[in-house]
């Protein structure tokens, strides 16, 4: 993909950009108003400081909102993503604008909606109004309110009892360096519905810094099954902020996987609310840092009902002088008896200068629960390395095999072969 520095009209991050964007996307009045309200919150909210607990190890002092441009039209051209994967639907969104979109007609015939959020605001206003921003309101914070003001993205609706057999996928790309993009995903799976969704964020490396502030809200209805995968492969100079929230109703199951490879800086908040009895949530995360990359993963397993199960596993590999912070909270609210909640964070350091901080937290207000958390940070076991080298593998190949093995339980959960293969190639490139 070519990175162009000019062409499409842009504005700075501003109220004007919010209004122009909403107009360009042909959105109804209520959505435009929501955006403008969010903008007000953004402006009124101070930028987080490192004195705030959540940001204590997360340095955004070099982030300058004034340095980015908001594309207010679609790019003149884009590089279509080629893939042989079998999917029921695919959309490619470049700089916030839908460039390509398809949904299998037989899936649409079952009442499944897969469209841009702007279109859905017109075609399905009731559903969108009910769910959009319900999990991540403006009050969530500075970045969330910015996304609520400027985000464009996809809407997925699966009616009760409908099973979408093959995955749906959205690819968000950023085609102009120096620009700001705001990917957004809203998934609503009604009772006993089932769907797999993959978000991919991608851009090439560039000299000028870019910004991505994304939000995803995922609703899993009673007895519904949702799988959600987010693959962050931004180019090297992108600041990535992501707020992702899952709500799982009674007996629903949400399995999510967040993969972070790109960007100069990446902060992802991934939260799950177990809202109905018997809800089940699997939260997996994979990150791989090299050079000076920074990754922050902030997770919440919020048990708001009894008899729920949540299992979190985040694994990171860090090379060179890259750094990561994982902070995870299991919260068991009063009355959420028979909670089963597990949290594990494992980090492998491939250099003496890489660093991983792991901060687990439990906040338990019920007395009949099973909770555990574990964390580890350390280098590759030298005896494992020696064992593989003693079979003829170079040090690099031995490390690669160990890293592959470390990630294996997560990679096997990726439902698309093409995505798995690209990931494997990206990991290989990162191994140097």
């Amino acid at each position, binding site marked *: 993909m070519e990175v162009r520095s000019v062409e499409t009209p842009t504005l700075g991050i501003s109220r004007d950009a919010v209004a122009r964007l909403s107009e360009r996307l042909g959105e109804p009045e209520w959505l435009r108003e929501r955006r403008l309200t969010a903008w007000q919150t953004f402006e009124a909210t101070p930028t987080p400081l490192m004195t705030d607990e959540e940001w204590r190890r997360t340095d955004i002092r070099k982030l300058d909102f004034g340095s980015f441009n908001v594309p207010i039209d679609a790019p003149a051209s884009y590089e279509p993503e080629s893939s042989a994967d079998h999917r029921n639907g695919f959309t490619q969104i470049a700089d916030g604008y839908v460039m390509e979109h398809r949904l299998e007609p037989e899936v649409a015939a079952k009442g499944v909606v897969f469209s841009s959020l702007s279109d859905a605001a017109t075609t399905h206003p009731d559903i969108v109004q009910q769910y959009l921003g319900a999990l991540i309101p403006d009050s969530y914070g500075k970045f969330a309110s910015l996304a609520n003001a400027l985000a464009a993205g996809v809407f997925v609706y699966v009616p009760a009892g409908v099973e979408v057999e093959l995955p749906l996928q959205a690819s968000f790309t950023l085609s102009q360096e120096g620009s700001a993009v705001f990917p957004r995903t809203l998934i609503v799976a009604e009772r006993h519905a089932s769907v797999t969704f993959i978000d991919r964020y991608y851009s090439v490396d560039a000299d000028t810094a870019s910004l991505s502030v994304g939000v995803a809200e995922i609703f899993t209805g009673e007895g519904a099954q949702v799988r959600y995968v987010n693959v962050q492969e931004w180019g090297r100079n992108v600041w990535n902020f992501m707020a992702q929230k899952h709500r799982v109703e009674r007996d629903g199951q949400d399995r999510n996987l967040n993969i972070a490879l790109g960007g100069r800086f990446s902060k992802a908040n991934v939260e799950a609310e177990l809202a109905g009895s018997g809800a089940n949530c699997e939260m997996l995360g994979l990150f791989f840092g090299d050079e000076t990359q920074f990754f922050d993963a902030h997770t919440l397993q919020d048990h708001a009902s009894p008899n729920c199960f949540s299992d979190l596993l985040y694994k990171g590999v860090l090379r060179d002088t890259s750094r990561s912070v994982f902070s995870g909270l299991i919260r068991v609210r009063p009355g959420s008896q028979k909670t089963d909640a597990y949290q594990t964070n494992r980090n492998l350091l491939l250099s003496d200068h890489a660093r991983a901080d792991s901060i687990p937290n439990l906040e338990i207000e019920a007395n009949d629960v099973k909770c555990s958390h574990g964390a580890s940070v350390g280098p590759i076991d030298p005896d494992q390395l020696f064992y593989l*080298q*003693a079979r003829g593998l170079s040090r690099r190949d031995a490390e690669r095999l160990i890293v592959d093995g470390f*990630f294996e339980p997560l990679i096997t959960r990726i439902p698309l072969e093409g995505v798995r293969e690209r990931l494997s190639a990206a990991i290989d490139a990162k191994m140097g």
Partner: protein
Amino acid sequence: MTELTRVNTDREIATMEKTLVIRNLHVNVEDKEILKGLDLELEKGKTHAIMGPNGSGKSTLSYALAGHPSYEVTAGEVLFEGQDILEMGPDERAQAGIFLAFQYPMSIPGVSMANFLRSAVNSVRRARGEGDMRVPEFRKKLTERMAALKMDRSFMGRYLNEGFSGGEKKRAEILQMAMLEPKLAIMDETDSGLDIDALRVVSDGVNTLKGDDMTVLVITHYQRLLNYIKPDYVHVLMDGRIVTSGGPELALELESRGYDWVRAEFAVPA
């Protein structure tokens, strides 16, 4: 007459190919000297056994030969096919044809046996300037070698040594050896943890591989294994040195008399 025979024998020994020559090898582990001037020569195509009590330095020798970074060679030389290997990394030694069957093989979670074996075989081939082994050829060879070791096909999908029983680990080591076809196979206590049936299978595997080319160094502190893998020479390692060597009968003597007489006869400090 006697004189003449001796000369012939000496010349014969001198010209006989040595796979490995170790001279005055000193090895430290965590700054403690474990090998204290060890000398040993291994003849090409022969099976040598090293016996010695627990803690005498047998595993230290095998790790030092394989190039483990924690085993620091402070003096001496090790020639493999006439070439000094002490400056070579463990991967280069393996590529040159040295194989160590570990006393305690490591498990590598998430890495399947099949994937690992393919990586190992191809790493060695590439180092020799050969291309990767083609997949059908690899499969065929693997199937044959596994059958010979009475290993179930399901092994291939399992993670390397992960959750393997002691016996399974040892079998897996010999399978790796069978796939890599080394010139020198060092087997460190391969018999420990094996029941008699497994011992027979593993020994048959090694005996089949031996042929004319492979030199074998069997390390053990029991004579039992040597009933199955018959040594041409037996060396006794005590207190970091080879204190005496002999033929297969030496192993039987050690079995019946223990090590104390060796200590007394060769003045090894207790």
